[in-house]
């Protein structure tokens, strides 16, 4: 079972390996989440959702379910 961004801890950096949701993947890639690119998990919102990640040199907020659709290598 592959890991996803939703399972990352604050400060961790990983490499994006793919997406489990076609519809979301198009939007995520446009925003700079690219397979092979690095992603840093910054912090989660007070209730654990949404989360803030860094991709392509800027900060992006994602819902947990969206983060869970991004698989990572580590």
């Amino acid at each position, binding site marked *: 079972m592959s890991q996803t961004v939703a399972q990352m801890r604050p400060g961790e950096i990983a490499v994006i390996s793919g997406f489990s949701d*076609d*519809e*979301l*993947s*198009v*939007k*995520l*890639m*446009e*925003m*700079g989440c*690219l*397979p092979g690119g690095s992603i840093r998990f*910054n*912090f989660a*919102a*007070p*209730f*654990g*959702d*949404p989360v*803030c990640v860094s991709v*392509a*040199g*800027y*900060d*992006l*907020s*994602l*819902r947990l379910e*969206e983060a869970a659709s991004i698989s990572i290598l580590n």
Partner: protein
Amino acid sequence: MTSTRRSRIVLVGNPNSGKSSLFNFLTGLNQKIGNFPGVTVDKRAGSTSLPDGTVAEVVDLPGIYSIYPRSLDERIVAEVLLDHHSPAAPDKVVIIVDGSNLKRGLLLATQVIDLGVPAIVAMNMMDLASKAGISYDFKKLSERLGVPVLGINARKGIGLEDLKKQLISKNGAAPIKQVFAMPQEAVAPVAELRGQLGVDNDYEAYQFLEQPNSLTFLSNERSGAVEVIRKRHGFFPGKFQGAETINRYSYIQQLLDEVVIKPSNESWRDRSRMLDRILLHKVWGYVIFFGILLLIFQSIFAWATVLQDFIDATFAEISSWLGNNLPAGTLTDLLSEGIIPGIGGIVIFVPQIAILFAFISMLEESGYMARVVFLMDKIMRKFGLNGKSVVPLISGVACAIPAVMATRTIDNWKERITTILVTPLMSCSARLPVFTILIALVVPEKTVLGVFNLQGLALMGLYLLGFGAALISALVVSWLIRVKERSYLIMELPMYRVPKWSNVGYTIVEKTRTFVWEAGKVILAISIVLWVLASYGPGDEMARAEEAVLDQNANARLTEQGLADRVEAYKLEHSYAGIIGKSIEPLIKPLGYDWKIGIALITSFAAREVFVGTIATIYSIGSVDEDDSGTIKERLREEVNPETGGPRFTPAVGFSLLVFYTFAMQCMSTLAVVYRETKGWKWPMIQLGYMTTLAYLSALFVYQIMS
């Protein structure tokens, strides 16, 4: 041949890329808000003078991340850029990219360049980029992209002269390079489109295939032809979008490897991260957010009222001066009793709207608004809303009209409809005058706990009541509307920045102007209609007023003043307004209202704030007193309920009215905007129905409990 047509420049770029700052710098106060033809997306347009002495029109397009639209708002960008043959087609497209975040900005830039439009890339925020230690080889970037690239600082206005020089230069009108690699399956349909419809660029033709919903500018015949070609070749829109994005980004990565002179150093972001640690803290984050809301209410209540009292007094003086100095007659009456107070009733909102939009615009400019969405998304989702609903809901505190329009940023249809339906429950600034007067009447002016003004607390309570009702209604609405549609939140958290004050100023001017012209028309018209309704009546009852009063009071010895008062009261009772008010009295009696309040309810259906004007008109006509130009509040306090002998406005009546106005959909302008936004009367009618019912039942409950 000399053409007098003004050249047209459009600004395209990511949200937060500094597009608005650049627009404000180029146009100054020469801006106007219009609509794009056929759609309701706001079009910010203005004019700027160019070095060759000509004046160009500048259009600020909605911020987007890619040419593939995610929402209605974004679709307009694709339409403007795809419609090459329109007389409104841009002469130059300025693509603003954030120099500190070039990678993502270049995705959009390469797409726009591939469309074959005459483009210029303006790299903004070079100050941030240099702080990050990045510098770029502009010449190489320009060569590789095939369009001019220049660095600007839109906050300080640096580099705008160079940009303007580029805008008039004729060379490099249309770029030749293409990043786009055509998928094999699209080659045949694109070739056919270009041959059959004369589309002049591969990527443009490809977008015709990809975006069937963005082609509203094509005639039916032509869009039908596109459809036929798409079907014949079995082309599915969206199939290659992911691959295209990956290709573009890999091209961009190569490009950046060549043109970035120094790699970036991320430490400058630390300050923003530190702020996030506090502002997004699980306790402090909400405490600060709530504190900011409290500050907004306090400042509206404390600062705006000072200005409003001044405006109120000034218009009252103009009115009485005109009444005394112009020859007596119907026209003078119309002017001094109908038109001037009507205009005063519009101007009086300007301080509130200005202060509110100052706050909202500062929150947006600073990057904090995105954090509000981040903080609230989880909570809002529980009520069937979206983190993005927070912005329209907060804007609804100023006015539901721009707030309903602001829901366009919500991509999900169901969440958008839900937000639209409940936004008018947020207490808008038009309710403030109603609240202010009624609170002043029924809540004592006291300080509690040392710092809190009791009246201010009552006002905040009403805001919270509206907010609570909005959340509960949202829950009910989202439970009733059963649609399976994906909801997502993929949103940039921009760096914190000090707001650019001139942008805040422009927002204030823009919002105030829109209110004065759009809502002002309705308010003025209603004021005049109201004056006519209250001054004229059927038959000859009005003319016989004095006679009738004398008949009724044959035995009473009346002073001249007392007689005049009764004549005026008689006249109002027999005017059209009096007749309407009386006929609804049985319906509103259980809420504690009489026919005079009834008249105010009827007239303020058009716009809530008319309530105050109506009450003022009705009571000033009803108890005309030449020497005393006392405030509305004092007049209301003096009003006696003939049935009880006590004051008309008891706490029970006051609170019943307050609750009624918190919930009632008393605003024709909002209904009209909802009609426009939802493209039909179904939703505005549902909204009117549920809000009026809620208001009536709640006011009934409050009055019956309290009296």
